């Protein structure tokens, strides 16, 4: 569907059947950026309305997980933690992980939860799962604040590498959105996907070095491990903030490639299914 950007009467919309694969229309998404903003804002506003703890939930989830991991893996199992105290070792990984996992869960459900919008209004459908992932940004910021507090508590002062967390968070976002695009579009037709997600997130948690360091693996495998994009994110976080050993360069590169493949594939898959959303949902 071709649309020109101007608001002049010359604007022409051509409506026709599109077939096969086509390129996701990012220009269209950009034109609807205000709607995207409002969708994110709505998700953030609504999430903790009528909850007793409110935004504390954003922190509680990774923090409680950190406590459990510290007790069982750190204290009882004596899991190595690359020379930093185990609680901060786990929490530095749990912060980006929680952002990823919540984004994945929310975006998968997002289209089905917005089915009324899908059936009644036109706008780029991409905005819905994207808004779901982005709305986790507020929770992330709060959790980052707690992480900063923990670093101070343990007397860890990160250097200039700390700036790396920005691209690392983008990598987590891309992974979350990439998987979210695949699953949300599938979920429109097959609601099973909704049941698969909690299970998937759980498996993925253990397939990512959160409770343990990837230094447990020997080298070519440690780099190959980066095929899981969250490996690059988590190990990158630890390196940037905790100064654990050498930069995970190889794994990070592989993770970036994997995330890009997920995202691009997801976007095309989404574009292909999006034209049937209103009919199927």
């Amino acid at each position: 569907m071709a649309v020109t950007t101007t608001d002049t009467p010359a604007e022409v919309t051509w409506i026709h059947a599109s077939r096969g694969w086509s390129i996701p229309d990012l220009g269209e998404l950009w034109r609807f950026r205000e709607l995207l903003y409002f969708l994110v804002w709505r998700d953030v506003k609504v999430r903790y309305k009528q909850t007793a703890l409110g935004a504390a939930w954003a922190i509680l989830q990774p923090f409680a997980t950190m406590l459990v991991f510290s007790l069982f893996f750190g204290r009882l199992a004596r899991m190595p933690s690359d020379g930093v105290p185990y609680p901060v070792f786990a929490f530095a990984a749990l912060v980006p992980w929680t952002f990823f996992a919540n984004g994945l869960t929310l975006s998968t459900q997002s289209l089905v939860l917005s089915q009324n919008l899908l059936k009644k209004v036109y706008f780029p459908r991409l905005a819905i799962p994207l808004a779901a992932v982005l709305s986790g940004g507020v929770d992330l910021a709060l959790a980052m604040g707690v992480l900063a507090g923990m670093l101070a508590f343990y007397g860890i002062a990160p250097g200039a590498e700390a700036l790396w967390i920005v691209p690392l968070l983008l990598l987590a976002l891309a992974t979350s959105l990439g998987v979210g695009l695949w699953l949300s579009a599938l979920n429109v037709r097959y609601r099973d996907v909704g049941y698969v997600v909690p299970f998937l997130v759980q498996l993925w948690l253990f397939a990512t070095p959160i409770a343990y360091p990837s230094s447990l693996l020997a080298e070519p495998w440690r780099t190959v491990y980066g095929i899981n994009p969250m490996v690059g994110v988590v190990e990158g976080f630890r390196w940037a903030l905790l100064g654990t050993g050498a930069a995970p360069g190889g794994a990070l590169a592989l993770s970036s490639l994997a995330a890009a493949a997920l995202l691009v594939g997801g976007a095309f898959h989404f574009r292909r299914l999006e034209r049937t959303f209103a009919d199927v949902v």
Partner: protein
Amino acid sequence: MSEIAVRVEGLGKRFRVARARRPTMLREALVEGLRAAGGRLAGRRAAAEEECFWALRDVSFEVPRGEAVGIVGGNGAGKSTLLKILSRITEPTEGDAWIHGRVGSLLEVGTGFHAELTGRENTYLNGAILGMKRAEIDRKFDEIVAFAGVERFIDTPVKHYSSGMYLRLAFAVAAHLEPEILVVDEVLAVGDAAFQKKCLGRMEDVAREGRTVLFVSHNMDAVQRLCSRCVLLDGGRVAAAGDSASVVARYLARGVGRHGAGAWIDLGAAGRSGSGEVRFLAARHLSPGRAAGGAAFPGGPLRFDLALHSDADREVGSLAVSLRTPGGTTLIDADILAKGETVALRAGRNELSIQIEDLPLNPGVYVAGLWAGHAFGAAYDHLESAFEVEVVPARVEGLDRVFTPGGGLVPCRFGVLTGGEGEAARRAAGGGGWSR
């Protein structure tokens, strides 16, 4: 600048109803997929999905810039599908449409309203969803709130709103959308009569401002008032297109058959009371004039043909057809008793007719009741709700016989008083005359 705002050519939309159910569980889809692949390997073709259903087929029309065009048709005629395609919510299966200008579509009011958010927050969210820019909403915000009349509650979550307030706010946001082409579907079918009237007034303003409007509604009165031209859809195809009055007349003529004008209605299963010595077997109603397909219209004649069974020869002193509103207010009771006449029935089947000459009813649906009984006595047979009668607008095909400027049909004696007491009374009443 193009003269045509919307051009539709050969538009079609197919839905698959194949195999009664399509797999909605992943497991079924996988099994189906494997089976289809296996079949293909074995040289068999997958079962042809012949069960296709065209919600829309070969639809072509043009809407000139600045014109309001109505889309009418029965349920399932494809109206909503057409609007969804033109609103880009769903894609057509075939054909093309070109839309020249910014489209705003209202397929529902309050789309995207969130119960937990306040009126203010929902106004912004809903505005953005309908395609308004933030600056535009900022500018119109006060106007929207005033139109909805919810100033005091604007910072209250809408879940605490009454349904009326909720609808008013939802419509107010929608009403301030200013696209070049407005696509509206059944939005008026919500709210009470006063609210609907307000909405309709707003729509008329929009149409009068010279904006292009595509309007789908079951309200034939509204369609005729808003739209100069109409497209009639039937079974997904364009059945007629042209000026509103003639298209609406065609639509109503179709609808009449379904509502039973001219067709005998079996009363065997109708709820009834009475001794049963006389029983109504069947009835039909029709307007003896051919116009409007035999349907009743204001001021026109309406005949009821009745078939009755009597268990013996008898004189019946009271035989009546009544018409009342669905709400239960009786408006007409045409009883032979009032004329002092009697009807002689033979044992067995009898047929007779009662004709109302100048039907004093406005367009709408009424409930007919039937009565047969002794004069001043018990009922032989009484059907409180025998069947429905639809009265269609007389405007169609120029049938206006009764001069009813405001639509009122109840006759009354009135005159204009000048000077003296009349003048004083008129001034006290606000000095107004009649607005029409």
